[in-house]
């Protein structure tokens, strides 16, 4: 019941946008991932229950879309684009550098649970490569120094336990 406890207004607002409530499944899955940390069976069951859907359908959606994480991830998910246009401007080398600095392989999570490193397909920012998204926020025109600065900033943010609303929460709040 985490989802309904945490975001009752958002859920109501999202449902009001569609003539058929099944359409609310992706927005609710985004929020469920916020509440539960990843698209766990429990989280997907809660979404299914709110929308009167078969839980296996919701689970199949979780498997289909790449932004739903089926396993727990770090506090900050760093998704580096290494698709062709970015790779022409050094993205593959950037991924290696990031992996070395965080001391984790691609798809790995740091021991402190802060960072998960992933590689992703084109993020519509090819003119600003190397680039990544950190919890859906664009970080662009990167190099080693900027990556170091980003990691330090995120570590400081985590230490200060500043709980700013996430991007998913901010977008969902527009439905209230």
């Amino acid at each position, binding site marked *: 019941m985490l989802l309904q406890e945490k975001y009752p207004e958002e859920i109501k607002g999202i449902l009001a946008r569609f003539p058929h409530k*099944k*359409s609310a499944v992706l927005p609710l*899955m985004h929020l469920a991932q916020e509440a539960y940390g990843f698209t766990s069976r429990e989280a997907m069951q809660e979404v299914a229950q709110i929308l009167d859907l078969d839980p296996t359908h919701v689970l199949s959606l979780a498997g*289909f879309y790449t932004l739903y994480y089926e396993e727990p991830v770090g506090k900050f998910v760093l998704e580096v684009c290494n698709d*062709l*246009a970015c790779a*022409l*401007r050094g993205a593959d080398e950037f991924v290696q550098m990031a992996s070395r600095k965080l001391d984790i392989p691609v798809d790995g999570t740091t021991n402190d649970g802060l960072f998960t490193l992933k590689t992703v397909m084109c993020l*519509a920012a090819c003119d600003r490569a190397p680039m990544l*998204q950190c919890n859906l926020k664009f970080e662009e025109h990167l190099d080693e120094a900027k990556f170091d600065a980003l990691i330090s900033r995120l570590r400081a943010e985590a230490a200060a336990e500043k709980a700013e609303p996430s991007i998913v929460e901010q977008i969902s709040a527009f439905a209230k």
Partner: protein
Amino acid sequence: MHKLEVYRANGGYEALQKVLNEYQPGEVIDIVKASGLRGRGGAGFPTGLKWSFIPKAPGEKYIVVNSDESEMGTFKDRELLEKNPHQVIEGAMIAAYAIGAKQIYNYMRGEFMGIGQHFEEALKACYDAGILGDNIFGTDFSCRMYGYYGAGAYICGEETALLSSLQGDLGQPWSKPPFPAIEGLYKKPTVVNNTETLANVPPIITNGADWYKSIGTAQSPGPKIVCLSGHVNNPGNYEVEMGMTFHELVYGENYGGGIRGGKKFKALLPSGGSGPVVKEDALKAPITYEGLTPYGSTVGSASVVVMDETTDMVWAALKMVHFFKHESCGKCTPCREGTFWMERLLHRIYEGHGTEQDLEVLQSVATQIKGKTLCALGEFAVNPVLSTIRHFFDEYKAKVQGGQKKVAAKTAVPTPTD
């Protein structure tokens, strides 16, 4: 421009007002038809004609804006949504009035949630100002618009997959017919238009079809946003008049500014990963829907990726095929299996373990996918393979010849990436 006051101070929403006060829906469709506007989502389908397919009978109808923008090398809709969301909203509302829709959804890729703030704020400002909602500008026209965010799937840019996804079903295409114009969202008549297409509509209404046609060429009228990336000095979005050459785009001082590091040009992808690669001779071609036909390619949504002389074309093909394998929705076997095998074979060839026979099998797998898939993704996946083999056969040859020697010494089984 993303603020409502600024947009209105520059004549924003005057086109919508004009349409609501002066034109019948059918007249709006006629103007857009006369302007020659063609869809900016890749296929170049005439926009006015698409709107005219919607049945005139009253009933629920929908406009769906396609802001899924996931083609490699494409980043124009993103900038429109960030910097000029009102022009997209106004265009979509004019479309809604023209076809008799009262509800608009803007389907953005999930990764746009961060930049979607601007778009959501723009919508909110419109509701507050009475531009969205009931009885807009004191007329009978009522209309609502909402943002929707996908969750990471290139295939959801294909219009029927997009509609399935928006309905809460698995984001897979359906076989047409039924066409969305007859049975689209919730089985109701629906127009799916690209973000940039709709942004072209308000200026057409304000300045007229003749003005629009005076820009660009006879068959490809209007301005076009071109996304330029890769090995150029100045990557970015450029609004160009259709008919400008690719050479000007790559080398022009106001555009790409030439190849980075003074290197030599090698090849260019005019439509991201989904269209065939072209060589230097194609630089003289105009940027139009027809301009690349003699070179065996197409402009698509004008995602121009430039590659210099240092680029390994087998590597580039592998990157693109990896994309399509990753993004294949799995509904049809030739695409699902074919992209898997193409990636495996390309990987083996790229790593230097491939044989001449692998190269032949690669070509045969690619040829067998063609024409046998439910949606165009399968066709797209074939393009990087066959076009790089056609234009850069020597590079493949060199790799398989080196490979045969290595295979004798080393029997490691190649693993496909990912």
